[in-house]
């Protein structure tokens, strides 16, 4: 019964027109944020993505206010500008005051989000029904994706990957040893800015499918899961992208079966489950294998001890 349902949903990707775009859009998000999220995790900026995605919300409101259209490209542009601005404000607070990064992130995300809510409610009170659907960016509504949206998302994601492939070596150095990079003459400041820009693009893609609130999970969790299996950056990026893509497709399919279900929460639960499995079962570091290894070690140790004690004390 359940299996049959799963199979029907799965083949729905090939037959159902809407579901195909929903799954495709979510997969694009998962792959992009999965790959780029590795950098935020490795650079110890995990929660930076949280601030960026919340900061994007007023951008959507302002873009709609000025452009007057719900064309996803305009909204994404507004979102990207504000996400960037939020990032700059966060860095500005930490570099010019004694406020630490965590509080600076908290300030950015809550104030920008508040401003976003103000703008959305302003549009609601002035624009009548026409603004409806802007609040789907809170939790994401992949079901609302149409062909042009998916095309836009795909182009943006492709742009991210081109930048990522071209500057892979530079990003790697800027991530792991930026002082070394600087000594080699790499413009590490500009590289960091570029890396932040592609992460902003990933965040903006995510607004459609997971929404501003849960976006942080799409950046961190696939990367954290991939990190449990692999330690080379390149392979980690690939695995993280795969994890992200899988959770995007699975999450959007599950949510498409239920009326009015936001996609974001389901995708987040899927990817966190993948992380849980990775933490348990990864061969090198997983709890399970660690437990087995410890037990074996303990048995070996006790064998050795008993054999030693027999040698030294043959009568017992």
């Amino acid at each position: 019964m359940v299996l049959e349902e799963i199979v029907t949903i799965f083949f729905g990707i090939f037959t159902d027109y809407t579901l195909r775009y929903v799954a495709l859009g979510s997969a694009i998000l998962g792959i992009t944020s999965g790959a780029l999220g590795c950098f935020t995790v490795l650079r110890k900026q995990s929660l930076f993505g949280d601030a960026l995605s919340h900061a994007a919300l007023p951008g959507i409101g302002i873009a709609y206010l000025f452009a007057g259209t719900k064309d996803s490209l305009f909204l994404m542009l507004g979102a990207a500008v504000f996400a960037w601005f939020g990032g700059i404000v966060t860095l500005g607070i930490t570099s010019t005051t004694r406020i630490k990064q965590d509080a600076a992130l908290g300030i950015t995300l809550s104030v920008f989000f508040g401003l976003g809510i103000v703008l959305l409610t302003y549009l609601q009170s002035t624009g009548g029904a026409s603004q409806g659907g802007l609040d789907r960016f809170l939790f994401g509504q992949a079901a609302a994706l149409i062909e042009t949206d998916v095309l836009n998302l795909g182009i943006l994601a492709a742009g991210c990957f081109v930048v990522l492939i071209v500057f892979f070596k530079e990003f790697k150095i800027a991530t792991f040893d930026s002082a070394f990079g600087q000594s080699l003459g790499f413009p590490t400041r500009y590289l960091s800015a570029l890396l932040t820009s592609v992460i902003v693009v990933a965040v903006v893609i995510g607004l459609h499918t997971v929404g501003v609130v849960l976006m942080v999970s799409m950046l961190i969790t696939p990367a954290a899961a991939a990190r449990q299996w692999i330690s080379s950056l390149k392979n980690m990026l690939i695995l993280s992208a795969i994890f992200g893509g899988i959770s995007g497709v699975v999450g959007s399919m599950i949510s498409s079966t239920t009326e009015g279900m936001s996609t974001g929460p389901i995708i987040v639960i899927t990817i966190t489950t993948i992380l849980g499995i990775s933490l348990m079962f990864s061969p090198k570091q997983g709890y399970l294998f660690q437990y087995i290894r410890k037990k074996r070690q303990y048995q070996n140790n006790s064998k050795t001890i008993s054999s030693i004690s027999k040698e030294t004390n043959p009568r017992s």
Partner: protein
Amino acid sequence: MSADLIIIGTAMLVAANCASIGAFLVLRQMAMMSDAISHAVLLGIVIAVFVVGGRETVPVIVGGVLSGILTVSLVELLYRTGRLKKDSSIGIVFPFLFAIGVILVTQAGNVHIDAQHVLYGSIEFVPFDTLYVDEINIGSKSLWVLGILAIANISFIAILYKELKISTFDASLAVSVGMMPVLIHYLLMIMVATTAVVAFESVGAILVIAFFIVPAAGAYLLTDRLSRMIVLSVGLGIISAITGYMLAILADVSIAGSMATMAGVVFGLIWVFAPNRGLISRWRRISKQRFEIDVGIMLTHVKDKIELHHQVTPLSISSALGWTFEYSKKICEFALERKLAGKDDLGNLSLTESGRKKAEHYTAN
């Protein structure tokens, strides 16, 4: 009591409750932990509503606090394995718990919580929720609950003030004098969760964070004393609440959203104008320091040139040091005024005794 007054009173109490606890969160660098807790309380609230079958205050608070503690423990558990960084663990745990909460809310029709109001609350409806004792209306429920919470928070801070202070600023000292900072940590987290769950009902998850962090961060730029910081933080929170309410009424927008926006505006003003720590005074200090250093460079330059029997004028200084002529003239005039340098009739500079000493002092360092 009029509806407006009840809303403003609720907002002020939320601001005061969050901002006082928030001072410790900012100082202990746990701001993002409060972010996590204020999201995760949703799960506890929803489960409590499921179990009890209604939005009774006490079960909701208990559920919220339990899920807050669950969040903190899960984050620590993940982080202690050594395989995830602390901020990554926070960013993994709270979206997960929040996502479960959101799904439960959207899928269960009888919870009466709107998914969006989870984020930005429904303070507009607070006046309709009144409390009855023996069927006598004793006023707004939110004012009572928040008032009791305020008393709890004030007594928490007052009773454990010394312990909180020492464990915040010097955890190892706290251990060595037997203050159990871990216990303090968890008590603080319980207070954060309680405050978050109570405030959550009226202003929503994100704006709880605004009131926890933003006023406290502003106060942190204004003072160095913990006690003053707490008072200032509460004051800034209340100012943001009142101005935010006025903005919301004027522009007909979300009350909670405009309160967070005003909190940001207040913080922005402090960031720019704060005495000693603001951007303006920082810029002034830096340019003053730069000027003083440049005076030193000028004096050293003049000393070197005089030892070589060269003539030095503001013009030669500007070409030698790459300054504009105006700037080198300004610096020379400053040096003349302070009697660090002298000038002959042709405009050539010389050093006075104190100027020579100063130049030697600079070269010695």
